[in-house]
């Protein structure tokens, strides 16, 4: 029998961390108590994307969208909504502008501009049930390829669709497949690059958690096209839920005969294995990834030879990113022409972005290419937190750059972002407001790069270290104006001479902040001031003698006894002793202490 109502509960990592699993158990318990467990089905789905307000619970068929649900809310949802048909008002999403409750996800600003292709099944199906995927036309693309299309025709269709690699570089996927097909060998490999390393990016994880079969199906299609019968997923071990879902999915696909030998009676064989990475950033680079899978150090090698010619174990290998693969089945079922209509001239389809930082709707979104940064940040993202002023948005992770106010109306696609001095990267988008210091931001990314550099080539290993030293000096107020020129020169040298993609793009955060926020660098160097009040070394704390009443609260709480003064007399801070921890500001009841 079929259920009359479905309760979808987000089972992504974010919502599970806030007791999502517990909510499912409580809902099932309450349903059983009310003898409704045969009429209402509770389903754990993948990520809905609206992580800011998780855990999310969605009730079908009336499409009610509950946010920040706690396990103890379960009985009320069953009693009120399921039995009496009254929505639980206090759990509905409140429109931040109009202050009214929005019950239906379609009326939420967050979803209005979105077009979900790669995320089509995330938050809709149960990722641990292959039948739900099949019910959404899953494996139909594979079946179509195996029974109706020649490998060359599949590649032609992918080429025609204009799909470009979603992992960062934006290389045309169809072309990549064609190269891998061209080389003859007794064994070829399809590799799924699930080594998602950009800080703040989690789209690949969400796809694997919410719709693992789309990746498996696409890998099999790729295998058919390039002539490979073995697939490998390289995933970082720190994604336990994604790994678990992927394993379940692979096992189910094998049980159903959609992986293995003689798939759908067509004589095509394909198997998939999972390989675990230790979470090194450089292993997202395809040659380093391949070496890591071979059991060697995760270090990149020069291309050519490209993996298409000599990859895993020296055999022709095609490496695609998770999000790229998730697009493949839809392109083949709906046709390249359909996909081609979405997006801009040179960047087709959609792109998933992970919104993070000082933005209201932190979460995972998917918009057509060509959507402007303004639309993404202000409409989908709901604007800047606490109504502060927008300062910059960092795209492309450590390889990307910071874009400013003047770039807000740029339509997002691969080429426009590069022209603006940043890049698409894997789609991390970190929004910064007036309180963020751009020199410190550049320093943060360089710290990451220095940490993650594999050390093989000297421009990256030594050059980035020197860049970091200069930036550290500047944030401590010890920089000189010559440093700016050195930063610029050194960055450009690293860009030109580093071995792999990681090194070649690593100075981007420095170059883009140098260009867009030159004044901030100058303020740090010449005036010894951090305009955003972030660089500790350049701050000093001061007590306003007019406002201080001499309550001694600050002096008693100061961990280093840097505050002196008699009772009922204004106090003073000994700046030589002060460690700028901010405790006194928090403690002062008279707002007498400020940062200057």
């Amino acid at each position: 029998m079929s259920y009359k109502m479905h309760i979808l509960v987000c089972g992504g990592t974010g919502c599970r961390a806030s007791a999502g699993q517990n909510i499912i158990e409580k809902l099932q318990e309450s349903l059983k108590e009310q003898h409704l467990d045969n009429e209402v089905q509770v389903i754990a789905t993948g990520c809905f994307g609206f992580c800011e307000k998780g855990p999310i619970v969605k009730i079908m068929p009336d499409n009610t969208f509950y946010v920040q649900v706690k396990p103890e809310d379960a009985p009320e949802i069953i009693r009120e909504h399921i039995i009496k048909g009254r929505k639980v008002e206090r759990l509905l999403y409140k429109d931040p502008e109009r202050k009214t409750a929005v019950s239906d996800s379609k009326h939420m600003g967050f979803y209005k501009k979105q077009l979900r292709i790669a995320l089509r099944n995330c938050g809709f199906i149960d990722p641990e049930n292959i039948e739900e995927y099949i019910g959404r036309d899953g494996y139909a693309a594979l079946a179509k390829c195996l029974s109706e299309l020649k490998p060359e025709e599949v590649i032609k269709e992918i080429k025609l669709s204009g799909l470009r690699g979603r992992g960062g570089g934006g290389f045309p996927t169809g072309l990549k497949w064609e190269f891998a097909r061209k080389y003859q060998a007794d064994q070829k490999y399809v590799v799924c690059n699930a080594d998602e390393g950009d800080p703040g990016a989690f789209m690949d994880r969400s796809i694997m958690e919410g719709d693992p079969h789309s990746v498996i199906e696409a890998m099999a299609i790729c295998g058919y096209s390039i002539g490979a019968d073995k697939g490998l997923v390289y995933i970082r071990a720190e994604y336990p839920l994604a790994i678990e879902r992927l394993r379940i999915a692979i096992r189910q696909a094998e049980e159903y005969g959609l992986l293995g030998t003689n798939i759908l009676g067509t004589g095509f064989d394909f198997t998939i294995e999972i390989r675990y990475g230790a979470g090194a950033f450089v292993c997202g680079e395809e040659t380093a990834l391949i070496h890591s899978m071979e059991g060697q150090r995760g270090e990149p090698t020069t291309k050519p030879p490209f993996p298409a010619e000599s990859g895993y174990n020296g055999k022709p290998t095609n490496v695609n990113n998770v999000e790229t693969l998730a697009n493949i089945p839809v392109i083949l079922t709906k046709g390249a022409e359909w996909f081609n209509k979405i997006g801009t001239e040179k960047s087709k389809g959609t792109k998933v972005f992970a919104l993070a930082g000082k933005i209201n709707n932190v979460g995972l979104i998917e918009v057509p290419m060509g959507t402007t940064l303004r639309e993404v940040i202000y409409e989908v993202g709901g604007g800047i937190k606490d109504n502060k002023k927008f300062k910059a948005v960092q795209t492309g992770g450590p390889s990307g750059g910071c874009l400013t106010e003047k770039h807000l109306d740029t339509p997002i696609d691969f080429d426009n972002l590069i022209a603006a001095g940043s890049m698409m990267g894997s789609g991390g988008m970190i929004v910064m407001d007036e309180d963020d210091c751009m020199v410190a931001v550049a320093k943060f990314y360089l710290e990451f790069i220095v940490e993650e550099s594999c050390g093989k080539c000297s421009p990256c290993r030594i050059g980035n270290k020197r860049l970091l030293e200069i930036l550290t000096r500047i944030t401590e107020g010890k920089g000189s104006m010559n440093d700016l020129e050195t930063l610029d020169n050194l960055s450009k040298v690293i860009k030109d001479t580093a071995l792999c993609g990681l090194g070649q793009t690593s100075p981007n955060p420095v170059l883009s902040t140098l260009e867009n926020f030159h004044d901030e660098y100058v303020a740090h160097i010449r005036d010894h001031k951090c305009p955003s009040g972030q660089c500790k070394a350049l701050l000093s704390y001061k007590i306003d003698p007019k406002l201080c009443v001499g309550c001694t609260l600050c002096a008693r709480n100061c961990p280093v006894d840097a505050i002196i003064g008699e009772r009922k007399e204004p106090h003073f801070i000994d700046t030589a002793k002060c460690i700028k921890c901010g405790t006194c500001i928090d403690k002062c009841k008279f707002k007498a202490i400020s940062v200057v």
Partner: protein
Amino acid sequence: MDKIKTLADLKKIRDHVQAKIDLREKSENTENMVQIKVAMGTCGISVGSKETMAWFLDHLEENGIRAVVTQTGCMGYCSYEPTVEITKPGKEPIVFGHVTPKKAEEITQKYLKKDELVEGILPANYDTIEGIK
């Protein structure tokens, strides 16, 4: 589980599962579908609105009608219960009174299928918040 050996096997599973997840598909596109709301206040339930709702849930498909059936609270027509509000795509909602399963059948055959009105339509006696300009 038997392995899927042919395209036909795959299609069979797809069609079978599609019926199960159809509810979710429909909920995403309610504008193009008939929406049926069954009043399930105490008054409605006591005179059999549960049976009415069950009838709609079980019989619409065989009549070839794609609809979203939901429950709602008391609509205020307590003396006409069970009451059912039906909204066809692009049309004003209509409220029917005394909808027993038998009446539900009549509504389905006449109003839903042929757009013919049936006895028992209740006049709208209120404005909605959206209606006030």
